[in-house]
């Protein structure tokens, strides 16, 4: 009898344990070992990503679906998202009108050269501000931030007159010269990005290199630059995008030159198109979707560029062997 009771309690204990175990397994499945790898967390992340991504994708999808629509679809109110018949007519109109391959080549040169020079100069300047102490440093930095904070609308007129005096207007030099001297569009923000990135690199790394006999330039090129690859990439991307997209200043500075940025070309095409067809004609209705097609053709190269460069965000830290301070 006693023996039997003993077996019974054993079985009860075993079942209890098993219940606990399955409970904990379920819990682990939901929340993971360290919470961030559980199902619950994953689902939450994807839900938030989809939700936030939808906000950004919504106008893109709107633009894409509109750009494929024929004239009938645009006028028809019942057609909202999916066009009844896909047409490439809008793209063809814009492609031919702005001579897309050539325009794209121009735009890449117009954005790429200033962006490269801005990246180069701001890396140097940011490093100087971050790693060296010198008199008037705070004042100089304040002046730098001031140039960024002042709305460009104020300094517009004097800047334009100044560039005219320097004979820089109407060519790519209006962008390259200021950029290489650290004064391009949003130049201060690039310098600040580099500044904070170089501040994040521990000083002891530089000191050990100095003890090994490396000069300041060698430390900069061999240690600081390889550690700042993400910063270099984002600065290059930002400046490329800004030079590529800017219409307000570049429309003014590039007036009368053969090279124009893509948005300016699309704008010019729209103006020409509008003057050809009177208000209210059916061809005028088509203009909206042609414009959206032009916008997509403008944005697409940037998206492709970003898709291929974003990998390098991750690689920089793996290549170095420093440990945190």
């Amino acid at each position, binding site marked *: 009898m006693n023996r039997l009771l003993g077996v019974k309690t054993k079985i009860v204990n075993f079942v209890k344990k098993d219940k606990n175990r399955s409970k904990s397994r379920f819990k682990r499945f939901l929340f993971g070992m360290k919470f961030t790898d559980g199902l619950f967390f994953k689902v939450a992340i994807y839900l938030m990503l989809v939700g936030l991504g939808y906000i950004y994708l919504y106008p893109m999808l*709107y633009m894409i679906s509109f750009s494929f629509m024929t004239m009938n679809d645009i006028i028809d109110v019942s057609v909202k998202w999916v066009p009844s018949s896909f047409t490439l007519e809008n793209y063809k109109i814009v492609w031919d009108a702005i001579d897309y391959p050539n325009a794209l080549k121009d735009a890449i040169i117009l954005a790429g050269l200033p962006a490269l020079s801005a990246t180069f100069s701001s890396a140097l300047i940011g490093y100087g501000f971050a790693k060296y102490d010198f008199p008037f440093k705070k004042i100089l930095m304040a002046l730098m931030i001031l140039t960024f*904070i002042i709305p460009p*609308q*104020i300094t517009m007129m004097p800047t334009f007159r100044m560039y005219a005096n320097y004979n820089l207007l109407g060519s790519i030099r209006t962008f390259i010269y200021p950029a290489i001297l650290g004064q391009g569009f949003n130049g201060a923000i690039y310098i600040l990005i580099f500044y904070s990135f170089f501040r994040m690199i521990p000083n002891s790394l530089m000191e050990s290199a100095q003890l090994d006999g490396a000069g300041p330039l060698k430390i900069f090129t061999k240690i600081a630059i390889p550690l700042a690859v993400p910063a270099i990439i984002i600065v290059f991307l930002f400046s490329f995008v800004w030079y590529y997209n800017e219409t307000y200043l570049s429309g003014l500075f590039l007036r009368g030159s053969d090279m124009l940025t893509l948005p300016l070309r699309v704008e010019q095409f729209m103006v020409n198109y509008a003057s050809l067809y009177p208000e209210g004609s059916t061809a005028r209705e088509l203009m909206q979707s042609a414009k959206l097609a032009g916008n997509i053709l403008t944005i697409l190269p940037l998206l492709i560029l970003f898709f291929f460069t974003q990998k390098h965000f991750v690689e920089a830290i793996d290549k170095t062997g420093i440990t*945190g301070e």
Partner: protein
Amino acid sequence: MKNSLKKVFKKTFQSILQFSNKYIWLPLEKYIFIPIRKVIYKMFHSKFIHVSYTHVVLFDKFKIKRTNKRQQAITGFGFIFLWIIGYLIFSLYPVFNSLYLSFFKVRLAGSDINTEFELFNNYRAAFLSDPYFVEILINYALSMLLNVPVTIVFALIIALLINQDIRGKGFWRTIFFLPVIIASGPVISELMNQGATTLPSIENYQFIDLIIENVGSFLANPIQALFDEILFILWFAGIQILIFLAGLQKIDKSIYEASMIDGASPWESFWKITLPSIKPLITISIIYTVVSMSVFSLNDVIVYIRGKMLGESTPALTTGYGYTATLSWIYFIVMALIILVFVGAINIRGKRAK
């Protein structure tokens, strides 16, 4: 076959190297590099200036110690040399010219510019007789106080989300790069005019009506305003997201592992590791957010100032460029104050935590 090809390749490569050594590098060194080095050496070992390991001697008389601090200052200036030149050439004149003109009455007469000095008349007019400016400015400052923290928090959340171990990282990053492209170009104002940047679903599904019915309009109105604002804010968060993302990549992962072994939860390690490491980037993002929202071409203040510049507003108050320069400088001071408030708030909290 393969080996013989390799040999041929190797031989040609070697001969090219030899050739280049003999006919390119050696002459280059002999006739260009060495003379340059000599010139530099002479420059620093002449009568006027003599550089030794411990001292710099000027004109054989003034002995200056080569301290570490001075050396640092000189190399530092060397690095920012480009910026100083650029500032003197390109930035100094427009900034101070506009400041200077803000004290003047400027009239464009053909290609001539007539200026008439009147000390603080423009400033007085902006505050006392301009009916709209002060009101617009106050509204702007209040909306900034709400928008900037929300922007930073959202950007940080999105950056943290993309930084997790998720599938299709490239795809997600590209989606969250979209606002950078769109908000910097002419497309954004177009989309805003067409209403494509607002979410129709919120209005369509009577979400707000539901709140009004159940709770009351006193709660519903701020929520609706916040929703409208959030969509606008998210469009301006693209660059901050990327800055945070690049910063998060730079944090050493072994620190997280160490803290996990010590029993820190992800929540704790976010506050104790992630946030302090990217604090300098938060400061930059604040500056960027304030500036990009303030100079955005559809911003109320900018629209007002531009209207004044082009003389679209009431003729009684248009005093041309001088007055707009005044308005812009006042606007700039308000912007700078807002930035100072936020940056100061962050740094004070950081000091207390230490």
